[in-house]
């Protein structure tokens, strides 16, 4: 899951090397903390959160298959 989110984020930003994802794993819940360069924040959030929403939708589909609930947090 972590790798998938990293791969998606890297394909969207100007500074792929600054992308990192921290995994916080609970019993049924997986929290993925996505960190990107400050100037790339807009590239993973988008107008009215449209990009963030699309990323969450894709991650959710992947989570269903792995019997988990996933939360994607974009952190500064």
């Amino acid at each position, binding site marked *: 899951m972590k790798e998938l989110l990293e791969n998606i984020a890297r394909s*969207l930003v100007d500074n792929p090397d600054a992308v990192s994802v921290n995994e916080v794993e609970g019993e049924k819940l997986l929290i993925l903390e996505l960190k990107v360069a400050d100037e790339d924040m807009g590239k993973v959030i988008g107008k009215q959160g449209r990009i963030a929403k699309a990323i969450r939708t894709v991650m*959710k589909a992947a989570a269903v298959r792995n019997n988990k609930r996933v939360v994607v947090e974009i952190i500064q």
Partner: protein
Amino acid sequence: MADYVEKESKSVEVAIEEALNEMNIDKEDADIEILDEGSKGLFGLIGGRNALVRVYKKVDYEEIIKSFLYPVFDMLGIDGDIDITAENNTLNVKLSAENIGIIIGRRGETLDALQYLLGLAVNKRSDKFMRVTLDVCNYREKREETLIRLAKKLADKVERTKKNITLEPMNPYERRIIHATLQDYGHVETYSIGDEPNRKVVIRYKREYRKA
């Protein structure tokens, strides 16, 4: 965003050669734009101008698309083929896979999200805008046929009963199909209510036709 090298030299060929060498790529991997063909001038002495070329590294769309989609396939546990066709400024990406439900999602929302992200990823590395469409096993085509059939069926019912019918929530693209189908169909008219993502189409009987 677009990587290019500009070179000035006594001839176009030499300038291209120099640019390719500097970029360390072959001619077939490059898009070449000639900015100035140069001119020898009079007797090769007076008013001569150097040639100026700009060389872009060709964007490998297939590579971008595949490196975006394969990890998604892996995570969704599907084994699929990716077929890419390009026409003008559109890249049509067709997937064929066994377990397509998971990649389509509820009302196609996963497929739409993937299409949107894929479009962003492609345009991030492309110097001209490319429209990217993503379909899996002709889902969109079949969905369109289903929507057209549904729209006509419900419109007939509205005409019979003269009562409004509200459809289930749909995305803008799907609502547009309903509106377009019923634009000149029977004595009905259509409009949308509610806010995204729960915006729905309503079909209603056209009153003025009853009086006429």
